């Protein structure tokens, strides 16, 4: 009962002191242990870097590890809502965990800011006024890869992805923009690490290019084996298999590969430069795509906090939707379904000294919105 009284008193005080009086409590649920921990750690570090830099005491962050298990994520979300009484949730990396958590927390009136996962179901019919995706809709980078394939004049692509929903979204996204024919289309087993059979099929097909979406360890394995197979076709893929965290494990096999991303460390804007520098200074490693997304998510939140009180949901939502913060991506804008409308770049994997990294070589799609916004009624 005490809490309610305090909230009421705070609401009264609000009229007098203005919008910033109420502290905001954020629940950050992400993957910090087990095999997929690298991505979650990057998102967390990016997010916390922004929090540290603002010095804003009104922001309290509670961090929990979901172990990449949907049921743990749901349980933690319950904890954040019921016990910690957070106002905003964020942090989830994987689409299946997001699908388990987001609909229920937004239905309970909390805000959810996604720093990574953007399943199509939450961008279209399942969109929600309190759900904002700061990174991308899942299909975006694949669509850009398709557009880039047209630009390169590929006529016969061989495409492959794991046999699960995000994999299907990936191939659908690529095909949505790619205009040539397909030399083959394969769904591989989720978690598969040996691609000898697929490589043999690629070799036997008359493909002129290969598009693949194989996140995490799957992509590392594929690229190493691709190099070793002697198949010598141009490869294009989304940034997920070429991010800073895993490139060092792929090594030479990734050199020269083109991949699509909404961010890179050489994007020329002051926010990004400062971000890359301070991230390196703080954590002693180069930031990844995921770190930039975590950083942007925190800054979006801080920008909304400066404008509105989180307890006034409508005003806070409007402040979020405005998206007025200094993004590492330069300009930032939300579409009507609360997903970004943004440029997506083509990057090439290069070696700088001893470190494998990416450099931007062009723009695949400008001011690109996702394919589902028209299904979203809110």
């Amino acid at each position, binding site marked *: 009962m005490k809490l309610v009284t305090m909230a009421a008193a705070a609401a009264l005080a609000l009229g007098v002191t203005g919008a910033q009086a109420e502290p905001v409590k954020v629940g950050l649920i992400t993957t910090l242990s087990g095999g997929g921990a690298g991505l979650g750690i990057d998102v967390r570090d990016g997010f916390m870097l922004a929090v540290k830099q603002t010095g804003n005491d009104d922001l309290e962050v509670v961090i929990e590890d979901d172990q990449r298990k949907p049921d743990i994520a749901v*349980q933690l979300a319950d904890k954040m809502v019921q016990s910690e009484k957070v106002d905003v949730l964020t942090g989830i990396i994987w689409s299946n965990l997001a699908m388990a958590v987001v609909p229920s927390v937004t239905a309970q009136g909390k805000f959810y800011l996604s720093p990574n996962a953007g399943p199509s179901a939450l961008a279209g019919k399942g969109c929600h006024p309190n759900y904002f995706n700061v990174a991308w809709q899942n299909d975006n980078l694949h669509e850009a890869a398709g557009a880039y394939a047209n630009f390169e004049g590929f006529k016969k692509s061989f495409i492959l992805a794991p046999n699960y929903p995000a994999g299907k979204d990936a191939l659908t996204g690529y095909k949505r923009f790619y205009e040539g024919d397909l030399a083959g289309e394969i769904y591989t087993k989720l978690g598969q690490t040996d691609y000898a059979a697929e490589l043999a099929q690629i070799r036997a097909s008359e493909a002129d290019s290969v598009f693949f979406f194989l996140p995490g360890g799957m992509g590392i394995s594929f690229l190493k084996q691709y190099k070793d197979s002697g198949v010598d076709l141009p490869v294009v893929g989304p940034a997920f298999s070429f991010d800073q965290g895993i490139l060092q494990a792929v090594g030479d096999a990734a050199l020269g590969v083109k991949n699509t991303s909404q961010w890179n460390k050489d994007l020329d804007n002051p926010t990004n430069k400062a971000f890359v520098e301070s991230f390196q200074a703080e954590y002693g490693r180069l930031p990844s795509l995921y770190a930039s997304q975590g950083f942007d998510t925190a800054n979006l939140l801080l920008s909304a906090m400066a404008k509105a009180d989180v307890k006034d949901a409508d005003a806070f939502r409007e402040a979020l939707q405005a998206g007025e913060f200094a993004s590492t991506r330069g300009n930032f804008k939300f579409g009507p379904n609360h997903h970004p409308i943004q440029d997506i770049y083509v990057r090439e994997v290069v070696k700088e000294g001893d470190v494998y990294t990416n450099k931007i070589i062009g723009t695949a799609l400008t001011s690109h919105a996702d394919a589902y916004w028209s299904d979203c009624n809110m």
Partner: protein
Amino acid sequence: MIRETYVNALAVAVLLAVPAWAVIADEPFTITLMTRAAIFAVAAIGLNIALGIGGLVSFGHAVFFGLGGYAMGILAHHAQTYTALAEWPILIEGTKSMPVIWLLAVVLSALAALVIGILSLRTSGVYFIMITLAFGQMFFFFAISWAEYGGEDGLSIYVRNGFPGLNTLVPIHFYGLCLTVLFLVLVFAWRLVNSPFGLALNAARQAPIRVETVGLDPVRIKLVAFVISGAITGLAGAMFADLNRFVSPTMFSWQTSGEIMIFIILGGVGRLFGPVVGALVFVALEHWLGGLSDYWHIYLGLLLLLTVLFGRGGLIGMVSGRRAVHD
């Protein structure tokens, strides 16, 4: 036996007192944790009937847990999207009613357990462990590629299903329901163990040839136990899905089978309250250790290891210092 009774009473006291405290202190998440433990306990009691009494070390009980979960997920998904589950030969619609869902979960898991049991009971020992694991993996990979029901993403159910006379969205109501089920299942398991069937099952594990000589078919007895066991774990699966308002192929994974097994071993194999104590302790550890360090799995691992190495008969065995009667 006296001291084991004390331990059991303590477990019941925890199940009753902690949520009562949580209601007073306004700590709804503690109730959610207790609900999780209660549901895991039901799943593990199911497995304990096959494993503890029948000696059937099933490494595939995730099949039934997952089937229960998907029974809930699919029915509620159709109810939530107002689509029919099947239009031919008869119109079947989804439902958001827990009793109906639970019934279906029990029937489905029992049927699956019957088929898997008939096939698996041709083997024994390590081969039985591994063939049940194989069935688990089949269901896991099938669920992952079943795009119609979300594949790896799983199915999200926005509002918890209803139970007549209760508001299941209130944590303590749902907990009360789960606790009632847990007590009913405990009573059932207790009566089963002491029934002629339970005694026959126990004998079938210890001396199958003698059982045969008195005219009973040990394989058939074990099969019945396996079906009952699967049905109870299936019921727990449906409840677990409702707790999370979510199902995904993870429920079918071999790690899930392993966890259910851990509850039993941790608490004490073949003991009535073993699964309950094991589930309570495991959930508590998971919660507390998770807050201590990013590397909390190391501590969990060490604790599990110490339990096996130095505690004969699980935690209950450690405390009461005696092996279970039927061991």
